[in-house]
């Protein structure tokens, strides 16, 4: 019971923070290219640095289990899967986390994307399509061995990185014009919790702390991993429709119902709570073309999430902080997928002014 409650709590906190800040990982990566916002690199790096410092720091205090061995991975499967996932995230106007947030705030588009993801993800991980997934994982296999990953070096590197990046964020906030404030109805804490768009700088630090603390908390319950989205969502389908020989994703724990399963539910609940207290909740129906895009995006994220062993969160923000070579490799293709889809689908829609 405590396992499920703590997973749910982390999900609620994360969902609330993401909703209140309008944080969108796909949007951050997309806008590095579309809007030339290089500053977004610092925002993403801040999450990884803060989380990495907590993870490796607690690892040295023996409060987090840093594995001796990370499983080998297929260069082909990870590259193809991550590329497809990145494209799907742009087509869906947000990755799986955004999809869960949309489910919480009443956007039916999110639900459509989620259903398409679950059906496809189940098909290629536990259904007839799992043989294709196994085949893709069977060649160009490399070891995920980074020398010194369990030494004191990562603690020092992430500590320096965290200090430098947080200083960069602080300086940016001080030297740039204050962002436009939406006219508010409330004051004080009610304004902060119920209607203010939280600035991105403290938001990314909070997300880094949440993701870092997820390791010791879920580890306490026997799940030695951080935030994950793909397998935890699919764990609901695996529970409802049990299958044998499931082709797993970013970690071996979440194919079973548990901490991760409740984390993803918590994200929906956190988004719902933030939306209701802001009096923003309403059912928003997509038009036909948006609905079709959601299906296509969900299918691509289903294929990509399983073949790429994870999503923008598990590979892009969690595995990178763990210094997994697989996740850094996946991140390259996730970014390429997002930029490729932005170039082909979004850029042509812009008129020259």
């Amino acid at each position: 019971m405590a396992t499920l409650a703590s997973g749910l709590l982390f999900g609620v906190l994360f969902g609330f923070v993401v909703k209140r800040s309008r944080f969108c990982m796909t949007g951050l990566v997309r806008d590095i290219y579309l809007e030339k916002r290089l500053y977004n690199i610092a925002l993403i790096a801040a999450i990884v640095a803060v989380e990495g410092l907590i993870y490796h720091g607690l690892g040295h205090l023996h409060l987090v289990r840093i594995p001796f061995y990370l499983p080998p991975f297929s260069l082909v499967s990870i590259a193809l899967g991550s590329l497809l996932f990145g494209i799907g995230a742009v087509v869906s106007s947000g990755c799986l986390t955004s999809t869960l947030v949309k489910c919480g705030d009443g956007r039916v588009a999110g639900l459509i994307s989620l259903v398409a993801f679950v059906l496809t993800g189940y098909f290629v991980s536990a259904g007839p399509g799992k043989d294709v997934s196994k085949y893709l994982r069977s060649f160009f296999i490399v070891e995920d061995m980074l020398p010194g990953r369990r030494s004191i070096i990562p603690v020092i590197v992430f500590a320096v990185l965290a200090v430098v990046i947080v200083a960069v964020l602080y300086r940016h906030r001080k030297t740039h014009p204050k962002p436009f404030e939406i006219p508010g109805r409330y004051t004080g804490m009610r304004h902060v919790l119920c209607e203010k768009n939280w600035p991105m700088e403290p938001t990314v630090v909070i997300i880094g702390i949440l993701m870092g603390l997820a390791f010791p908390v879920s580890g306490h319950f026997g799940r030695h991993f951080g935030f994950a989205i793909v397998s935890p969502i699919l764990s609901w389908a695996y529970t409802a429709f049990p299958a044998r020989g499931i082709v797993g994703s970013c970690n071996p724990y979440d194919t079973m119902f548990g901490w991760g399963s409740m984390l993803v539910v918590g994200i929906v609940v956190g988004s719902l709570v933030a939306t209701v207290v802001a009096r923003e909740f309403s059912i928003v129906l997509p038009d036909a073309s948006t609905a079709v895009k959601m299906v296509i995006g969900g299918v691509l994220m289903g294929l990509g999430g399983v073949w790429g062993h994870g999503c923008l969160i598990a590979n892009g923000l969690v595995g990178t902080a763990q210094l997994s070579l697989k996740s850094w490799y996946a991140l390259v293709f996730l970014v390429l997928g997002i930029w490729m889809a932005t170039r082909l689908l979004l850029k042509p829609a812009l008129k020259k002014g």
Partner: protein
Amino acid sequence: MESVKIDTKGQDCPLPLIALKNALAEAEEGQEIELEFTCPEATVNLPNHCQEAGVEILSFDKNESKSWTIKVRK
């Protein structure tokens, strides 16, 4: 000069921003543009773009139907 009205309800980011950018590209100097949207993330990126592009924000309202309307002048 007539003001331009754009409805992007049901569309998610970055489509409302693209719609605003396109309208600004076609608008005459001083022309007003009113854009209605339901994407919550656009409450950040629309005003941010206006601020960066030097576009004047005339009003920013939350509507009863749970959408938002931003009115700007080029």
